[in-house]
């Protein structure tokens, strides 16, 4: 079942609102888009419409957390992380137990163009000490991350969500027998035995492209086959897990709808670079470029992060 991660977030948040009365939600005039409106309708007394004033929303969320609330603040990722200084000081440095929810991740939002696309939000959030950075690959994983963030995580955390629908990859993963664990990479698909193994790490919308690329490659009878792993936790980053599955690969690739500067590709590069020997790494993502308006699938082709573009690149 295909669903956007923002929709899954909104539904999970409203469900958690029933169970955890300390949850409060803030939005900056985008509640319909971030799906925080589902919570707002159910619990109007715990929903704060902060207007188009993201910096104040972030600071107020910190204050709410200091008084014992568990605030979820929501907007487009680009707009939230654009108020970096407030996140840096009032949230991260202050140890505020705040959940920052950034939707409209990447060029996958399509038409609206660069100004609305979260493209370097992971880079920015990852650089802040104590900040957790999470990105689900599908609706079910969004729920799991939400459970983790309500029940277990203490301190600030950023969650990156999509506008567009994503396929149910947890169901695909289940076929491998892999078990989801918070903070750990998850096997989604095995490489075909006997073929040269490429290990792909995906995150967010990138994971679906990696899986499609793996299917395409096998269908074309390539001598290579891709094993796909999903990374939902960019920070803390599962270095041991990444190393364990990478060492015997012919090549490692990363697939993300985010800048390759500081995103998943950088996380994997930083990890592998610490080894004496490691496979070659190719980072598929938005290179040192801005986004632009267009159809999402065309933009994925343009930026070389569609399954088709990845397969073409691997065959070169």
């Amino acid at each position, binding site marked *: 079942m295909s669903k956007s991660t923002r929709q899954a977030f909104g539904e999970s948040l409203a469900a958690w609102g029933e169970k955890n009365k300390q949850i409060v939600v803030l939005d900056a005039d985008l509640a319909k888009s971030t799906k925080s409106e589902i919570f707002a309708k159910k619990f109007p007394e715990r929903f*704060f419409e902060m*207007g188009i004033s993201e910096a104040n929303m972030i600071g107020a969320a910190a204050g709410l957390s*200091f008084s014992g609330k568990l605030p979820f603040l929501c907007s487009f990722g680009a707009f939230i992380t654009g108020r970096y200084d407030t996140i840096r000081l009032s949230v991260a440095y*202050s140890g505020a137990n705040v959940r920052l929810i950034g939707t409209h991740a990447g060029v996958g939002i399509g038409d609206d163009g660069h100004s609305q696309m979260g493209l370097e939000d992971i880079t920015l959030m990852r650089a802040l000490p104590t900040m957790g950075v999470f990105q689900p690959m599908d609706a079910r994983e969004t729920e799991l991350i939400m459970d983790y963030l309500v029940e277990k995580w203490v301190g600030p955390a950023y969650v990156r969500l999509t506008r567009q629908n994503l396929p149910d990859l947890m169901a695909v993963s289940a076929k491998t027998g892999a078990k989801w664990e918070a903070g750990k990479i998850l096997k989604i698909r095995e490489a075909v035995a006997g073929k040269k193994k490429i290990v792909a790490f995906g995150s967010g919308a990138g994971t679906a492209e990696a899986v499609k690329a793996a299917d395409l490659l096998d269908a074309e009878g390539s001598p290579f086959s891709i094993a796909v792993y999903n990374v939902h936790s960019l920070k803390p980053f599962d270095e041991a897990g990444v190393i364990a599955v990478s060492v015997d690969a012919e090549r490692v690739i990363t697939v993300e709808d985010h800048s390759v500067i500081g995103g998943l590709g950088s996380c994997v590069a930083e990890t592998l670079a610490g080894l004496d020997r490691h496979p070659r790494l190719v980072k598929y993502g938005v290179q040192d470029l801005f986004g632009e308006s267009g159809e999402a699938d065309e933009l994925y082709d343009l930026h070389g992060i569609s399954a088709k573009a990845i397969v073409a690149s691997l065959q070169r």
Partner: protein
Amino acid sequence: MKSSSELAVLSQEFRIQIIDMLTEAKSGHPGGSLSMIDLLTGLWFSTMRGVESAKNLAADRDHFILSKGHGVPALYAILAKKGFIDVEELMTLRKTGSRLQGHPDRVRMPIVEASTGSLGQGLSVAQGMAMALKMDGKPGRVFCVLGDGEIQEGQIWESALSAPKFGLSNLCAILDANGGQIDGPVSEVMPLEPLRAKWESFGWHVLEIDGHDFDAIRAAYSEFDRLSAEKGKKPVFIIARTVKGKGVSFMENQIGWHGVVPKIEERDRARGELNTKLSELRKLSSPLKGGN
């Protein structure tokens, strides 16, 4: 509840500690620490509830956020008097390993409530705390001290718009309007006036006082007590007209002393002046003992 003359004595003692701390630290901000110390003394020793001492901190206490974080030596002096910091520890200000960071650090020292120092952020945090207290029906109130140069930051005006919307009559912002900032007079760097009209038009209840007159300071805080008890809709904004470097003749109204600390001989001169005045204030506050 202390009298105005008792508060004046306390505040003068804090001035001496501020000068000593900053001299020892060899860096910091005397001008804005001295301009607001009377405002802070009035708050912590005659107005704020449930903060009697470190050992006697009430669950339903009032809260304080120093948004103009560079003035933190003034707050540390008060926290030492309240027992949150050892008096000897004051001299570790800005030194490696000290929790007395150059700007407030909530993680190292929870009683400062918010980490500040990048200007313009504390009022939003104060607003959030006031929102939580209000929704939980708790009696605690939130005080937030701002610098006048600081409110050139856009985020301040986001909060100025926002706090009245939520009817936060449990929020009191106090502007230390000393008229100076690093690059020069506020009126030249980026004019703020008419301040009263601006904040009133944003929906705040505005009071304007002499920020070194303890009778006026106490009267303004009492007005806030009354308004917050009535559970009206408006947050309160107190414009306190102050003198940068107040209490040390050669620092008063001198922009140069915003972020420059005294050398030893300057410290001694400042101490001499402050001590002379302190003796006078002590006589005034206890006329019977001071009579002989």
